[in-house]
Every structure is written in structure tokens, then in C-alpha cells.
């Protein structure tokens, strides 16, 4: 990967000067990777979490600047992911409301796009977290994601995700089991087509589990409800949607982490 090499080179030369503006946008994952590469002797202090790891061998100034750049970039990325999440939530919720899949209480319907106001921000935040988490985990595991790293593939992934949602909302299935099984297969296919990494699978399953729990909790508390719950209080296909959503957002996050977002987003 020329870009990676480029990054490596620029980081190793970081003592000479600052990163170039665009290379300074190196992602957390890549920077960490670079740090690993070049600090074979120095055990690099790793700052996992929402801040990037610093290449430890760089001089103080370059470290500061790169951290600044990285954090700035991080903010950018999370903002983009947040917007993506908000948008997706709006659109997909609309899709489901049309089909009377979800029922919100009457008083919230009057708000924007007849959806509850809190749904989009929540989804946006979740998307930001997941999208940042994916590259983070990648770097933590030390295996940068290399499979189909291009925006076209990401777009395809998003399209398939929307399609899964679309199918779940619009298709008439014989029974819920069939629907759930189909969607599960589709989700797995999505993962296989666009991700194929163990970390992606694991994280997706985790996300699906956690999100399902949260929705169960919400529905149990009567915040909203599903029309024909067949899986405790929710629909049984919901975990599949969460899983594929996690994979998709992770895909976007990784692509954003790859480099400069060529375009903030085109949704």
C-alpha cells in the first residue's frame, strides 16, 4: 500500500519536520501502526480510547503537532460519522414508520419527520462510537484492515445495508422466522463481502447484542414499541439489522481512518 508506506516514511522523517498537512491527517490507527513499526526498541505508550496513540520516537514538537492534527482529524471523523448516523436513522426510521413497524407515542410524531427527536442523535452518537472503535480495535489487534479499502466499496456496503433495511420493512415474508433467517444470512453476506475480518465480526456481534439489549430495555420501559414483537419485546430481525449496521459504520469509519475524507459524505 503506497499510502501506508508514504505514511511510514513521513513519520520516520518526522524529526526533520512537521507532517505535511494532508499526511498529518494520518489516522490514529495508522499512526499507531507506524509507531509500532518504528519503535521496535521503545515500548510505545499506548493511549487507547478516544485519543490517538502518539508515535513515541518523534520529537516533542512534531508529536504535539501530530497529536493536534490527529485529534483534529478525530473530531472531523466523529463528526462525519455522527452525521451519517443521524441521516441513516432518519431515513431508515422513516422506512419503518411507513410500514408501521415501529410505533411511537403520538406526542413525538409531530416532530421532525414524524420520528422521535432523540432517535437520530442517539444513532449518530452510536455511529460515531462504532466508527471510531473499528479502526481502534484494528490497530489494537495490530492487523490493519486492508480488504477492499476504497470508497466505492464503502458505498456498495451502505447500499446493501439500506437494502437490508428496505427488505426488512417492505418485503412480505411468510413468517418471522423466515424473515429473520433471511436477514441474518444477508447480514453475514454483507460482512463477508465487505469486511472479512475477525475483529469486524466480533465487534458486529457485540454491537448487535448490546443494541438489542438496549432496545429491549427501551421497549420494556415503554419508550416506544414494535407492532408485532416476536422476540421478547422486539422484532427478531433487529439484531441482524444492528449487526449489519455495525459492520457498515465500521466500514465507513475505517475508510475515514484511512486518510483524508475526500468528501465529507455524499448522503
Amino acid at each position, binding site marked *: 500500500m503506497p499510502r501506508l508506506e508514504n505514511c511510514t516514511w513521513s513519520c520516520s522523517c518526522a524529526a526533520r519536520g512537521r507532517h505535511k498537512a494532508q499526511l498529518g491527517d494520518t489516522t490514529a490507527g495508522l499512526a499507531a501502526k507506524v509507531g509500532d513499526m518504528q519503535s521496535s526498541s521503545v515500548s510505545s505508550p499506548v493511549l487507547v480510547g478516544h485519543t490517538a496513540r502518539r508515535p513515541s520516537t518523534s520529537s516533542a514538537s512534531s508529536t504535539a503537532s501530530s497529536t493536534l492534527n490527529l485529534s483534529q482529524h478525530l473530531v472531523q471523523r466523529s463528526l462525519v460519522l455522527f452525521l451519517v448516523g443521524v441521516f441513516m436513522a432518519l431515513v431508515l426510521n422513516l422506512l419503518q414508520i*411507513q410500514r408501521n413497524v415501529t410505533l411511537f407515542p403520538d406526542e413525538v410524531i409531530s416532530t421532525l419527520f414524524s420520528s422521535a427527536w432523540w432517535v437520530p442523535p442517539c444513532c449518530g452518537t452510536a455511529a460515531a462510537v462504532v466508527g471510531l472503535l473499528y479502526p481502534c480495535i484494528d490497530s489494537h489487534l495490530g492487523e490493519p484492515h486492508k480488504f477492499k479499502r*476504497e470508497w*466505492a466499496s464503502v458505498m*456498495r456496503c451502505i*447500499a446493501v445495508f439500506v437494502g437490508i433495511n*428496505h427488505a426488512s420493512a417492505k418485503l412480505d415474508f411468510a413468517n418471522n422466522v423466515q424473515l429473520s433467517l433471511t436477514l441474518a*444470512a444477508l447480514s453475514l453476506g454483507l460482512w463477508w463481502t465487505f469486511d472479512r475480518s475477525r475483529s469486524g465480526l466480533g465487534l458486529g456481534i457485540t454491537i448487535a447484542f448490546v443494541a438489542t439489549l438496549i432496545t429491549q430495555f427501551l421497549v420494556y420501559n415503554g419508550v416506544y414499541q414494535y407492532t408485532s414483537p416476536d422476540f421478547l419485546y422486539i422484532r427478531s430481525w433487529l439484531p441482524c439489522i444492528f449487526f449489519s449496521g455495525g459492520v457498515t459504520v465500521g466500514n465507513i469509519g475505517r475508510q475515514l481512518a484511512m486518510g483524508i475524507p475526500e468528501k465529507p459524505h*455524499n448522503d
Partner: protein
Amino acid sequence: MTLTEKLRERISRAFYSHGLLCASYPIPIILFTGLCILACCYPLLKLPLPGTGPVEYSTPVKDYSPPSPDTGVQQGELSERPDWYVGAPVAYIQQILVKATVSPWQKNFLAVDVFRSPLSRVFQLVEEIRNHALRDSSGVKSLEEVCLQVTDLLPGLKKLRDLLPEHGCLLLSPGNFWQNDRERFNADPDIIKTIHQHEPKTLQTSATLKDLLFGLPGKYSGVNLYNRRRVVSYSVTLALRRHDARFLSSLRSRLGLLHPSPNCTLREESIVHVHFKEEIGIAELIPLVTTYIILFAYIYFSTRKIDMVKSKWGLALAAVVTVLSSLLMSVGLCTLFGLTPTLNGGEIFPYLVVVIGLENVLVLTKSVVSTPVDLEVKLRIAQGLSNESWSIMKNMATELGIILIGYFTLVPAIQEFCLFAVVGLVSDFFLQMFFFTTVLSIDIRRMELADLTRRLPAETCLAAAKPGSRCPRPERPPALRPAPPHSVPLQPHSVPLQPHTLPLQPHTVPLQPHTITLQPCSFRNLRLPKRLRLIYFFARTRLAQRLIMAGTVIWIGILVYTDPAGLRTYLTSQVTEQSPLGEAGLPPMPVPGGVLPAGDPKIDLSVFPSDPIQLSENQSQQREQKPGLEALSRLQSAQHAWAQGPEGKGNAQNEPGTEAEVTWGAEDEEIWRKLSFRHWPSLFSYYNITLAKRYISILPAIPVTLYLNPQEALELRHPQEANRYQPLGAGSGRLDAAAQPQQPSARLQGHQDVTLYKVAALGLASGILLVLLLFCLYRVFCPRNYGQHGLSHSRRKRGDLPCDDYGYSPPETEIVPLVLRGHLMDIECLASDGMLLVSCCLVGQIRVWDAQTGDCLTVIPKPRLRRDSGGIFDYQEGWEQSPDGRAGPEDALESAAQLQRLLSPPQPPLFCDQPDLTALIDTNFSERVKVAEPEPRLRAVGGRHKDAGYDFSSLVGKVYEEHGGSHGGSHGGSHGGLGYGGSTAPHAAPFGSSSRATAEDGGRRRSLGDEPAPALDKSSPGPAWGGDMESSVWSLDLQGNLIVAGRSNGRLEVWDAIEGTLRSSNDEGQSGITALVFLSNRIVAARLNGSLDFFSLETHTSLSHLQFRGAPSRSSVPSSPVFSSSGLISCQLTHTVACAHHKPITALKAAAGRLVTGSQDHTLRVFRLEDSCCLFTLQGHSGAITAVYMDQTMVLASGGQDGAICLWDVLTGSKVSHMYAHRGDVTSLTCTTSCVISSGLDDVISIWDRSSGIKLYSIQQEMGCGSSLGVISDNLLVTGGQGCVSFWDIGYGDLLQTVYLGKSNEAQPARQILVLENAAIVCNFGSELSLVYVPSVLEKLD
């Protein structure tokens, strides 16, 4: 795995051959693919457009009952019944379709008569309908009870308030245009305008008011001025709330009785229920739009990766077309095999695209693009295809597998999707293989063509002797390759001396980075500024003209088509006349008076006279009529022409006017179908009734036929109409009323004619005025001598100008070369210091020119009586008088002493050289061969001298006479030898010092008297300076006002450039001075024997004489001292390096305090200038050094006979890089800050990257001009050509400009180019020098 391997190999082979096929026959394959796509898409025509089109369902009229609202029961009963067919419809639509015509038609009727009276009947009809009531046992049922009551219009429809009914029955008829008021109608002067006043101006698919009120599409109504059929149709639309079969049948039978339609064949048996889907709201659209946005993003990101192709957009388009048409094909194929898509096409379409994907296309492109570029296009395509064949097949198989798995989900929608996807995948593969591959091959071929035209490789250049070339010069065959440089004094026996033969193999040119070939002049375009290029593009393609032409044609077409008397009407009339339903249709069927029309038998029972609730006069009249006597009633209502009643119809054939017959055909049956599908929804939406997800039932239309007689039509005619419209037919006025309108129309015609003449006259006058104005403007603004600006250019014929393919010549350059004439023979040495220019020709004449003005300042040797400053003399003159050229120089005896003192030897020096121009000298042997034989030319010179009586000639005449024979012989011999060598063995011993050695050999032998010429004995040298006479100037340098000349006899002379006096000389060396360097007050002379002499020039006056003229020197010397002419100058040998090289020194360069010598012994030496100490000996060349360049940065470049260029670091003496540059010698070498520019015997100028030693590109020069080059600035290169010099942008290799020096028919190759400091170049064309100032080029470069 062997199976896989085998499969893989087979697939790859198949793809390879397929790629070959595609690239070989691109056009047929693309056509074939297009046909396939069209064929597969053909079934799509039958599909309804996706969207919210209404759905129909028919039930028979008989026993119709509204479906029950209970869904379950209905579905149980009839499975074919659509699920929306539940409950009562929103409304029942009953249309009463009226066809009316005026019959018999009088020829003098107006166009408005076609529809005016038929339309007038609508009021009557509406009243009949409105007042219809059914009386039966249950009582009287009026229309009001059955019809759909509407309330207010929507508030936004104020404009339609008067036109659409409110608060009552929804009953629409054309009468609504006049508020159902017949008086308004009668008073309306322009019916058409009234009808069309609410028509939208823009294109619109939804229902218009005209459609709504007429109840049928506007074009079927016949209400226009060009209705040739003269049948007017309209319908009265009635919306009913309930379906009351009895009421409807009574209405039907009553109308049938009143207005029978005898030949009506409409089937009235089914009710059509039209279900309207839900309107798409914004909320529905958002997910759809989102998916489309994602789709576009996907396509964008995918196609962005297409790279390295000629037209990125074209390929991206091809890729998208591939995917989309594969989808269309899949839908079409599925439809063909009976699978109708039930899914919403718009929704699944993006997913299908995404599933099919653009990946294969990209992979293909990348693979093909990454094949080696030097292969043929076919092979590239084939190789690229076969490289990716396996992965493509694998991908395809995987996708198919996944989709097949999806097929087994057993969900119908998913199955359908998968089916489409599978067919789409397969057709996509097909299209990729055939369509996209072919497009790719075309693209790559285009790219190669573009490359080819931009930089033609050497092969094509040599083969470029195209017959169609516009080059005025005949292309020289390659056999006449000119002699390489430095081979002037070539003599036959010198061949074995230097057996280096030029490796001129037949062209096996290896692939070079790129070769810029200097085309024969037709291709020599300039790199023009962008705006000019744009303008030329416009001019060349005649874009504006063509646009205007196309626009005019379209405009005329539109005019012709839309003109009222134009094509459209004509076509319509043609069609109408040919139609079997036209006037020549069935003979009119006489309607028997008392016969009841065929109708429902129940009619008699159910039909009662209309309820006289609100009776008008007309209605009462109508009511009085007996049902059977409709004809009578109609005639009675007309109140005229009783005689022309049924009887008139009976003998209608005898009438002059034609009789019309209203026919009812199948096309009338459900004419509402031809309405826009938004007709009904928009109608109901006016009353805030939505049809979404509901349905309406359309009852069979009730036909009504109206015949109107001419009298009625005439009476109804509005007085204004008679004036406005002309009769439709050109008949004679049979009726009095008809005679009236003819007169005004004739007047109108006359008026039109007058107007036409007026307009024509006005146009003519204004045109003349415009021309005059333009002429005056031209006179005012353009000077008289416009177009005579550049004399030298205007003299040139147009054909000589370089033209491009379109015959467009670039603008004449403002660069006018200054031609310096005066030398008798070819110029051999050139030197300049920016202010002065010194040249030395073959006869040893040194001329000093002013480098700014081109004036000849001094001639050395100085002519005594007459200073020949203009120096233009004619060869031809001397030539003609050549026979007596040898005779009679008897008067040339006077000043032999002066001659001996001042004159350079009259014998033409066979060779002279100059250190820094060593490589630049091109003897242009072939040119000489072409121009003149040497001996007559020499004689010519002598003859001219004698004849013209010049002092100079008288001076030299004696010597000429004395030596004439021997010189002639020797010179001729040498030249003959040269010519011989040039034509036969041009590659033998051509090189600098070897030829110099040869020359010296020749000279020595000449001096020794073993010249083969028989007249040798007589050729004793002049009395004084005997040896000097023999010697020639071999090298020349100039600084300040001092010229240093090194002679072949080893003598060093210092001349005063202004006064032409010899200031000092030094004879200490015996060996010829091959190269000179004159730097501040130091002179370094390199001699033929390999020794190096360092002289210092000292003035014996004070230093104050050493003024600085301040002319900024170009590279090394910051300013050149001017040695005052008063002081005495002595030239003292300070140091001699006796054996600097053991072979002749061929190249000498000084810069940065270092002196570099290059010798024939394959080595270079670096000396320190101040103490003459040898610092390094550089070894690395495997041939004699021919060219050396050194600049202030201590970088030394050297080129040798081995064709190699070495770069050295003079500070350390290490070799930086070594490049194999040329086939044959490196003849010239120069550097800029970033490039090394070399030229070789192979006539190629190569530009190298200085730091990396990588060849950037090369320029194929014309033959014989290869070594003439110069660098003006860091990015401007000058090369010489046949009669021209070309300026190149070094950085890009673009030809900036070509300047033609002199007339093109006497083109000589530029053999030397010397760059002066003030953006001027001096080129040496034979005996002429051209001084070209190129500030414009420099500006253009910026």
C-alpha cells in the same frame, strides 16, 4: 489442482482470443451489441411505466352491482378480482360522446364553421341531460339524485371558478367554457381563443382544462382551424354517485332517440374500474432518493478509479451504460419469458446496480491499462483480458452462487430479485466482454494515436516522406545523408587513419522514452497561447458557422413544421385524405324518418318525456318532437332549409358541397383511455376528493351523433369570424353570405404583398447601409499598409508557410531575422562577446559585426580602398563570369607588402576551428555538393574580384593568379575528395581532431609540395609570411575589442576588432592551434600535438586603459575589459604544458577557474587556470572526446565518439554519471541547471535529467542540423533546421516557435547556433549569418 490449472489456462486463452477479436473489429462488435441490447429491451415497450399508473379492472355492465365492502367475501368469490376492488367507487363516470358535423359541407364555408355550430349544440344537449328524469313506479328520479354532488372548488383554483361546476352535479361539457350560456357562446368572437386561454404554456402531462371539459384529448376534439375531416367530437362528462342502471339506460335510450347514431358499433358491455395508486409523498421519496444518492456515490467512486485512459468520462459513461443496459436487458428478457416484475422497479433498481457492480469493468480497465504500452493495441487488450480472466470468472461464479442461494430463501420478492439479478449478471458479463472491451480498445487506440501525433517516434519520422505532405522541400533520401561534422578536409587517404566508422545500422531503434520528431515543416506548429489556440480551434472547425447553420436549419424546420400553412397541416391533411374514414367513406345513409334506432327494447318503457322542470324555449320545442322524428326535430330547430331535409340528404350526391358522415369506430370506444392518467385524479382533486387508493368506475359512453345543416352553421357564424377566416375550400361563393368574406380576404392578401415588398426593400437598404458602414470602419481603423507589415514574410508565398492539416497557417511571427552577408565562403568560426560578433569564413576573412545592429564593423584583412560594409554580393554574377575568372589579375600588384602584412592567406582555409564551438561546426557537406562545385566557385570568386574591380580583389588578385591553378587544384581536389567522401563514404573518419589531423596532413603535404595537383610547382607562397599565407584560422575568440585567432600553423594573433589591426602575435608554437580560450587577460591555446600553451596578454600602458565596457557577460566573465587601442599589447607565453595529451586536443573549456581539455586520447584533463597545474585526468570514455561543457557549478559534461556522455564533478574529479546517449558521436553538449542537452551524429537531440541521468525525451532533427543547438535561457532551447530555427520549451519538449530565416526555397541547414546574451542568437547559414532577436519567444515562454 491440475483441473483448475487446465481450466484456468483455457479460460485465459479464450479471453485472449476474445480480446483480439474485440480489438480487431470494434465497430461491428459495438453495432452487434447495440442490436442485442435493443432486441432484449424490446419487450420493455409493453411494460407500463413504473410509477403510479392506474390499474384497470373490467366487469360486465349486465348485473353489475357494486362490490361489497367486505374483503374476505370478495376474495373468496373471485380470485382474479383485484384486492382493491372493494366497496363502492368514488364515482361512476358517464360520458356522452358527441360527434357532430355540418352536412352537407359547402365549399365556401369558413374553417370556424366546422366546429362552431356543433359546439353550439352542446348547450342544448346539456340541458337535455340535466333535465332528464326517470319516472317509474317509485317516483320521479332526477339527475340531481343520482349525480355526484360537488361543493366548493379548492381555494387555490379561483381562476377556474366560473368554468367548473360548483355546488351541484359534476357535469362537465365544453359548454362550461361559456358558463353553459348559449348567448355568451354566440357573442364569443373567437372560440379557439376562449378554449385555449387556460391552456398551460409549458409542456405538461397532467390534465388541462380543455381535456377536462371536452372529456377527450384535445387533438381528438377536432376543434381547430385545420380540421379536414370536419367532424367535431366532444363529450359531456357526468359523475354519478350511485349506479342506477335504470336511470342510466333511460338516459341512454332518450339520447339515442333524440340523436341516433345509426352506424354506431360501440360495444357497451363492460364497466371499467380504474384504481389509482397512492400518491407518492415526500416521506415515501426520501428512502428512494437516498438509495439513488448512494447509487450515484457508488458509481462516482467507482468510475473515479478509471485512470490512464484517453477519455475518462467516456469510459465511465461506457461502464455505466454497460451496467444499466444489462439491467434493462435482464428486465426485458424476464418479461419476454413471461415473468412480469411485480416489485417496484424504481426501488429495487439501485440494489440491482449495486449487486451487479462496476468492479469487473474497473478490473478490466486497470488490467488492460497496465499492459506494456509498446504492444499493439490488440495485443494489449487481449493480454489485459486474459490476465484478469480467472478472477473475473471466479467473481462471476461467486456472485451467481450467492444469488442462487438467495433464490432458495423462497420469499417471492427475493426470488424475483434474484432472478433479475442473475439475468442481469449474465447480460452484464456479456456486455462487459463485448461492449466495454471494445470501447476500451477504441479508447486505448485513441490514446496511442494521440501519443503518436504528439511525438512521432523516429521510425515514423524517417518514413515520413508522405506524398501528401505540404512540405515544399523535397525530402532527401536517407542515402544522401550529409557528412558528419568536422569532416570538411576529408581526404581519401585519411580514411584508414581513423577507421572509426559510424555505426549506422538500419534502424533498429530501441524504445526510447519519447522522441520528438521535427516534422517536415507542415507539422511545425507553434505552441500558441491558449486564447489563440481556442480561436484557431473555432476558426478551424468553423464552429460558429456550423452552429449558426444548424440553428438556422432547426429554426427553419420548426417554422415549416409549426407554420399554420406549413408542413404539419399538410401532413395532417394528407393523412386525413388517405384515411378510409375520410370524406370518401361510406355513402350517406339515409335515415328513414319513422324508424326507431336500434336500441334497448326497454326504451319504450322507460323513456318518458323529459321532466319539464325548467323549460326553455328550445327544450319545449324538443319535447314536442316525437321520438322517431329526430331528423325533423333537428331540422326544425334549425328552422331553415326544410327543403334540404331528409330529401336533400337523399340526393346528396348532386349537391356541390360534400356531405359528411360521422362514423363510429373502435377508436371511439374508450376514448377516455387516451386521456392522461392524471385526468380523473386531477379533476377530483379540484374538489378535494382524492382518488388515491380508490377507484372510479367508468361506464360505457353514450354515443350521440349530430348533423347540422349549412344554414344553421351560417347563422351561427359570428360576424367577426367571417372577416377573420377565409373559406376552407377555394370554392366560388354560391351563397351570398359566402361572397362577403372573400373580398376582405383578397384585400388582406394584397396588403400582405405590399408588406412583403416593404420588408424586402427595407432589408435591402439596411444591408447596403451595413456594408457601407463596415467599409468605412475598415477604412478608418485599418492603416493603408495593413497586411504589409513584415516584408520578409509577405514575400513568402502562402504555400511556404507552415500549415497545419486544415490549411491554417499560424500567424507570421514578428521575429525578423537580420541577415548578415559579406562572407564569400562558408563561415567556419564564430565568436561573440555580446557586443561584437566575429566570424571567419573559409577564405580566412574575418569579419566583425555589431551584434546589436548587424553592421559589419571591420573586415580583416582590411580592404584598402573601399570598405565593403554592406557586403552583399551576388554569387550568380560571379558564377556567370566564371570562364574568364582565371584571367587577368594584372592590375593586382600594387600593394603586395600590405597584402602580405595584413591579409590572411587568400587560399581558402580548409579548416578552421574554435574551441568552444568545436562541436557546433557542421560543414554541411551535402549542401555544398548541392550548391556548387568547388572549383568553379573558387573561380567565381576570383572572377568576381577581378571584375568588380574591388580593391580587395585587386589585392588578392595577384595571389589568386599566382596560386590560382594550384589552389584551384588543391582546393578542388580536396573538395572533390570531400564530395566524393561525402557521397560515398560519409562515415569514414569524420571526426574532429582526426579530420583536423588529416587537414594538417594535407596542409603539410601541400607545403611540402607533394600535392597531387600538377600546378603545385608554381604555387610558391607570397614573398613575406610565406608560411602564414598557407595557414588558416582554426580557432577564434573574442573579448572586449580583441580578437584572438589561432592559426593552423601555430601562430596566435591578436587583432583589434574595431580597427582591424594586428595588435600582437606569437609564433612560438609550431603545431596548429585547435582550440582557444580567452579569459580576462589569459589566453589558452590547445595545439594539435596535444600541448597546451598559456599566454598572458599584457598592455604596456597603465591599467587605466583597461576600461570595462560593462557588457554583462553570459556565463563566466562578468565583464570584459576593453583594451584600449592606444596601448601596446604583448602576448607572452607564460606556461606550456608540453604533453597535456598525447593526441590532439579537441575540446577546451574554461570556467570557474578551471580549464578542461578533451582529447582524442579518450581522456579529459582539468587544469587550474592560474597556475596551469593539472589537477585531474578523467578517464571513462572509450572514444575520443568530442564535446565538453563546464559551468560555474564545476559540473563537467563530456561527450565522446563512443556516444556516451559523462558527467563529472570537477571538484573531486569523480564521475557522476555515465549515459549512453547517441549512436555515433556526441557532437554537441550543453547544460542548463536541470538538464543536459546533447546532440549526436544521429541527428537526435536528447534532453537528459542532469541529476539522475535519465533521458527525458529526444528531438529528432533534420539531417545535417543535428549539432546546431543553443540554450537561450534555462528553459528555452534553440535548434537549427533547414532554413529555420526552432525554439523549444525544454521542460516540456514543446515546440514553441519556428522562425524561418530567409526564403524557404534556398533553405540551408543552420550549422552553428551561437547564443548571445541579449536574447539573440546567431546562426550560420553557409556564408550568411542570421541574427535573430527572440524577446518575443521569451515573453511567450513566460
